């Protein structure tokens, strides 16, 4: 049974130059209508019995682009379909400087207990270059505001290897970030995605991405500084104090099922991964007809399920446990991936302790190479499951 819920708010006041998620410029009427449709969608899936979920995550887009009335409407909807008292972790993504005390008031009233701040970089020139609509000063204010309301479970998101960014520059951002001593940090290397401003600039040769050497060094430095600050590197891009790991994101890495609501959201239910319709008007139209707004469904075969168990699980510091694997699939991964595991161990990319395999620090640098090794060829898969 899925115990995690993702809700997508596709509106933004500014469109960032790197972002390829489902998003559009905020518009009050559209947002009102969208929230109604979100209500319909949740009712189609959840009906009248309140869902017992462990984690709820409101992402975007920018959830805080909604005004406080709309935010309240959204949270009411969520409370209508989900038993919030049972929820351990209820996260909302927020942009620094974009919301007021009233917002925070609403958040706490309806059970939100974790805020993920899209900080990205702590330098106004760089924020400008990314087309973020906040400034460094806003981060300070926002953190203070949240803490005043006892919303202390705060995470900050960062992007590194930005155009023209030096290793020193990233170090400065990291230092400033760690000064806040928040319980959770995430950091992602910039990825140039199609249909973004950066992609266009990249194609025109106008985007000065740091060389791979620098990017690698930034990651090494990031890991070192987080470790010194006592933040545990519990997943490739995530660092946290003990007990403050993101439960919601761990559900993804643990290969669990989850609901997804909203335009362009990705869900995983009844052995099927699905993606919702985007953009917003397609999503709306489908719900107006009373239909689930699904664009595409992809049944996950046993083979794919196994592969995902491995390449998602290996993202975590704790890696994948064979005991768990056997319980789930009735076969040991040591048998299924015999030659791969031997090879990766020889390379020093994975370690194998207590019937559990996980990435080494070297292996982490080449995570994709490790993950791709766990995609099964038909023959080896069939051999293992011929009975």
């Amino acid at each position, binding site marked *: 049974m899925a115990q995690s819920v*993702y809700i*997508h708010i596709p509106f933004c006041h500014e469109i960032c130059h790197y972002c390829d*998620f489902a998003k559009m410029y905020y518009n009050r009427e559209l947002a009102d209508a969208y929230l109604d449709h979100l209500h319909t969608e949740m009712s189609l899936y959840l009906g009248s019995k309140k869902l017992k979920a462990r984690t709820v995550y409101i*992402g975007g887009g920018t959830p805080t682009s909604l005004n406080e009335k709309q935010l309240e409407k959204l949270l009411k909807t969520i409370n209508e379909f989900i038993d919030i008292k049972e929820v351990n972790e209820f996260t909302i993504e927020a942009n620094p400087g974009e919301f007021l005390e009233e917002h925070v008031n609403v958040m706490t009233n309806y059970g939100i207990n974790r805020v993920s701040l899209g900080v990205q970089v702590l330098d106004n020139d760089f924020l400008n270059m990314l087309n973020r609509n906040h400034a460094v000063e806003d981060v300070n204010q926002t953190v203070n505001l949240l803490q005043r309301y006892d919303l202390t479970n705060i995470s900050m998101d960062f992007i590194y290897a930005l155009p023209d960014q030096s290793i020193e520059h990233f170090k400065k951002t990291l230092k400033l970030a760690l000064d806040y001593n928040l319980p959770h940090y*995430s*950091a*992602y*290397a910039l*990825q140039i995605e199609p249909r973004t401003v950066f992609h266009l600039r990249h194609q025109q040769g106008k985007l000065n991405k740091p060389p*791979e*050497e620098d*990017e*690698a060094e930034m*990651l090494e430095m990031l890991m070192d500084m987080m470790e010194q600050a006592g933040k545990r590197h519990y997943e*490739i*891009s995530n660092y946290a104090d003990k007990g403050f790991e993101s439960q919601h*994101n761990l559900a*993804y890495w643990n290969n669990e099922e*989850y609901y*997804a609501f909203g335009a362009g*959201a*990705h*869900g*995983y239910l009844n052995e099927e*991964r699905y*993606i919702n319709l985007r953009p917003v008007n397609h999503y709306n139209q489908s719900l107006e007809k009373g239909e689930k707004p699904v664009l595409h469904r*992809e049944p996950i075969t046993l083979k*794919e399920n196994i*592969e*995902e168990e491995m*390449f*998602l699980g290996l993202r975590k510091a704790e890696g994948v446990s064979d005991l768990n694997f056997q319980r789930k699939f009735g076969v040991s991964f040591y048998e299924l991936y015999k030659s791969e595991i031997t090879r990766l161990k020889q390379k020093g990319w994975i370690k194998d302790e207590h019937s559990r395999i996980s990435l080494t620090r070297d292996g*982490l*640098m*080449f*995570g*994709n*190479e490790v*993950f*791709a090794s766990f*995609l099964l060829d038909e023959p080896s898969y069939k051999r293992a499951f011929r009975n």
Partner: protein
Amino acid sequence: MLTENKQKNVRNFSIIAHIDHGKSTLADRILEDTKALTQREMKEQFLDAMDLERERGITIKLNAVQLRYQANDGEDYTFHLIDTPGHVDFTYEVSRSLAACEGALLVVDAAQGIEAQTLANVYLALDNDLEIIPVINKIDLPSADVDRVKQEIEDVIGIDADDAILASAKDGVGIDEILERIVSDIPAPEGDPEEPTKALIFDSLYDPYRGVIAYICVKEGSIKVGDQIKMMQTEKTFEVTELGVFKPNPVAKDELTVGDVGFLTASIKNVGDSRVGDTITLANNPADEPLSGYKRLNPMVYCGLFPVDADDYNDLREALERLELNDSSLQYEPETSQALGFGFRCGFLGLLHMEIIQERIEREFNIELITTAPSVIYEVELTDGDVINIENPSLMPEAKNIKEVREPFVRATVMVPNDFVGPVMEICQKKRGNYVDMQYLDENRVNIVYDIPLSEIVYDFFDQLKSQTKGYASFDYELSGYQPSNLVKMDILLNGETIDALSFIVHRDFAFHRGKQIAEKLKKLIPRQQFEVPVQAAIGNKIIARTTIKAMRKNVLSKCYGGDVSRKRKLLEKQKEGKKRMKMVGKVEIPQEAFMSVLEMDDDN
């Protein structure tokens, strides 16, 4: 059985046209107007059956279609429309298919006029004594200039263009007149049904159940199902199992006689036993002489084809056997490369031919290939006086054993509008060409003739020509013989090891520059490995260029993508797939493109 009267009413013809002058569209209209196809059956451009042909808009394989036409004189005629390939690489096949005809429609674009390639094929048609009917097509175009094109036909080809048919195949204009003129202008096939049989094979293809399907034109006598036939060149005999014609779908017949154009099967299993240009006769009453014009074609360009997956070697052999049958000009023999393992060194008529064969192997036979850079045949005179042919650069003897290296030259004829004479001459000079001649065809058009090493033509000469002349140049070439050149073998070393499949032969004057270019190019093409990979270019023991592919430092997807696991999976699958397409040579993974890179020389590099 055809009566004499019937033979009188047969017309065998083909269509000669430059690429995109509208041949396929015209063929379609003729099929339509003779009701060979219902509208529903009518796929656009019916004669170009293969996907590849359709995509490239050119005809590779020959086809023969039988049509019924009731002429204005009230009589019923049987037409055989024999389609010809439209590219410079396929001259021999064009000449064989023309040999099956008595006449040809010469289709000229009303705006662009005659192109060099059309000219070459018209000469082939005249050599075969064909009656030529000029058709000026695309008269609907705003830029059409019928008078100029007529003048050009008279000046360049020397045939009367006064009664050229004005047509627009696209709009169906002029088609009736074309059909009538086929009846009135093109002679009926001569030949005597009582004479010993001679049938020309002008194409063939392979069917796994029926064996070879030969496309034939009966020139003398007749063939019946059950006859013992003999191939006059290969001297093999077979029993005819099936005869038929294409209407355009195959229709079985008991007998084919003089003037008939159709197909024949005879349980011919061996691909080499039915060669284009060969003459079929009857085993018990053979003709004295085969039809003239048979040639075993000599390839001009060679390259190595290796399966990416070594397990596909036998499939690749089979694919080549099949293709050779369909394409008499393809040659191949086994080759072993230290870098690439077992494969075949294949000979092609030209580069387009090479590309088409590669694509067909990948597409129709589903074998992934690594192709080495194309090479020509070098003549090497050794110090001991022996002369050897080298078609594989890695087999070039050591410099100290070589007295002289000679390379093939072609006589290249480039036809361009006046304004582009400068750029064309510049390209030819850069390609080590020797000026031969220049003729003005009219006040606008010039024929420029150069002798150019074939090795310089094989890669991007045509592309450069097109880009420097805004697409106006047309180009034809024929082998003009061997000349001594100051050539050296360049080796490429990756991680300290010579990669034989990357060796190539280059003029000494260009060696330094090319070595540097290629090292840089490989640096771009070969992805970072787990370790640093030095790239070196060497002549003999002397390293002339060196660069380094840095070690991979980081490859991990950190981005969260929300819960979009499918996307992560696709990324990983792509990475794994990409690895499969690479060849592990020593410790280095090399992508397919790298092996072709040695001849790809953009000068801005």
